[in-house]
């Protein structure tokens, strides 16, 4: 079937990119200054023998391309190496940190979509009216403000001044309430939301603003489309035109943008997790950078790159699913 073949095709297309990601990270990571072995042994008196042993253990004595091939071999078997600094498998660390990051990014997207689409539509239909101007200004501020500063301001206002919401950390809904000492699942759910709210808005604002701008433009364009004129000429109610005829077409670019923006969102997650002290991949990345834990850095970069590629594939497939033109390869 078309869609299946399309999916397979997209996955195949992604392979060189994924390989590229590993090459880039590998090269960058091996520019690493200092000696990872010494860093690992911080402050211990060791002789050359020990250093040589560790170098052998991590294969540090071999030429770069050999190390790369070995590394790739391991990666293909799901082994992203070992965090020298934390003395744990990189995959274990990532598995543990992926949950909060995904939760953060997905909720930010949910927030962005839930606000951007209605606002974009309203702005498009009330074009050049005050509503439109206000929402355009909001969007403009949204794309012009650093997400971390939004986070800081939100904390200043809602956590510090008003004391309504917590300023740091997340509560994970997949844990049992007992682990937090909560009375039950309702409190767990309540606390999950309470903790998620500020970081979600901080990370989601930029997405919201970009999506809103796109939504507005697309809706305006779509509403000027001949098919909308046609629908109007055949007496289709304005509401149906908006919700069905114009909307469906306008959503197509939104889907693409969502995929591509995943890159900004994942980058933003680093800052958001830092500002809100969330134990996600972003913070793990900062810690890894701080300690020059290069296997961990490579692992994270590869995983984030893969997340992005997978995200784009998923959006491409949804696009193909919604836009009949793509499945059959006639996308113009």
């Amino acid at each position, binding site marked *: 079937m078309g869609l299946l073949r399309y999916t397979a095709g997209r996955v195949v297309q992604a392979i060189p990119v994924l390989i590229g990601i590993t090459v880039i990270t590998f090269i960058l990571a091996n520019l690493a200054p200092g000696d990872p072995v010494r860093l690992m042994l911080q402050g211990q008196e060791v002789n050359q023998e020990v250093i040589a042993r560790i170098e052998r253990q991590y294969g540090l004595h071999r030429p770069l391309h050999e190390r790369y091939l070995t590394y790739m071999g391991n990666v293909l078997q799901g082994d992203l190496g070992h965090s020298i600094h934390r003395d744990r498998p990189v995959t274990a660390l990532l598995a543990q940190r992926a949950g909060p990051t995904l939760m953060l990014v997905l909720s930010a997207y949910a927030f962005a979509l839930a606000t951007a689409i209605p606002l974009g539509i309203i702005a498009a239909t009330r074009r050049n009216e005050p509503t439109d101007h206000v929402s355009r200004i909001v969007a403009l501020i949204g794309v012009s403000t650093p997400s*971390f500063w939004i986070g800081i301001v939100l904390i200043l206002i809602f956590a510090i001044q008003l004391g309504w919401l917590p300023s740091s950390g997340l509560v994970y809904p997949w844990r049992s309430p007992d682990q937090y000492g909560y009375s039950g699942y309702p409190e767990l759910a309540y606390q999950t939301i309470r903790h998620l709210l500020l970081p979600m808005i901080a990370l989601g604002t930029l997405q919201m603003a970009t999506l809103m701008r796109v939504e507005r433009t697309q809706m305006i364009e779509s509403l000027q489309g001949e098919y909308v004129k046609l629908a109007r000429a055949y007496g289709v109610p304005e509401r149906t035109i908006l919700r069905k005829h114009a909307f469906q077409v306008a959503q197509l670019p939104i889907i693409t943008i969502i995929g591509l923006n995943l890159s900004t969102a994942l980058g933003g997650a680093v800052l958001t997790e830092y500002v809100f002290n969330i134990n996600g991949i972003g913070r793990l990345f900062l810690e890894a950078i701080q300690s020059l834990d290069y296997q961990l850095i490579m692992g994270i970069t590869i995983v984030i790159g893969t997340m992005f590629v997978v995200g784009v594939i998923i959006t491409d497939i949804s696009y193909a699913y919604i836009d009949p033109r793509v499945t059959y390869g006639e996308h113009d």
Partner: protein
Amino acid sequence: MALGEAQTDESHGPSEDVEAEYGWRYTFSKVMEDTTARWGLYVVALVLLVSTYTFIDSNLSQLTFGAFSDFTFAETLPIFDHPERIPPPGEGEENMPPAFHADGSLSNPLGTDPSGRDYFTRIVYGAQVSVSVGIVSTLIGFVGGTIIGAVSGFYGGRVDDALMRMVETVYAIPPLILIIVFTVFVSGGSPDITYAILGVGITFIPVFARIIRSEVLSVREMDYIEAAKASGVKNRNIIRRHVIPNSFAPVLVYATLQIGVTILIVAGLSFLGYGAQPPTPDWGQMLNTSHGYMHSNVWLSIWPGLAILVTIMGFNLFGDGLQDALDPRIND
């Protein structure tokens, strides 16, 4: 007709120049007609002016007159202090609130930082870093991207495929993450603003390459290129004389908007400690420092954020206006 023109064309025809000039002037007047774009331009102009002033002050005047102990322009203007000098023991007051606060003083309109330096001066001097970062790294991306994009789009085929795969790969890693890895590793663990600029510039090469490429693809099909090819003009010359100039306008718009994005990313970078280093007055770096004073001195976190917001908004408004002027389809 097209053929004849191309054959004689060593420097592109005079009529073209006139048209281009007319185009620029026309575009500019269109931008000035648009109220929001005009304000954007004012902000951009102000920021540029301030940066130029501070650049001259902190670099040239020192060359001429020597630093600190001797003449600087800043000292001739009583509103400015030295942006980096910490007041000697017994002078100055740390963490003073802004002037409108009861404990504030007009001599420090925005208060002082934890080292007792005048915050207003630091904010003003911060423009220089942000702007030079924005412009220089955008320029790097612009030039690099133009070369790669033009080559890729013009030759097509395998060259294009290979270059575009590379571009996609770089695209797949969130810029912030890639830039941090680049900056930290290439700098040998002591990141500073130079590496950040370089990192941002290189990371954005693919973004520009993509746009240039698609422009080139459309320009490539134009008659005069065909004609030039047919008449045996060297490829390199075709790219330089025809392809690049004709793909220029949309990329210029993009570059303007990109300056905003760049400032945003470098602010994030400095905020995390991988961009400008203290005591350099840089907005992102100041937010890093002020993060520790969120509870004791909120103002420190407010001003740099506002400065970033206003600057980026200026570039965005101006860029939007430029875009509208060049492509009035959406926003008339």
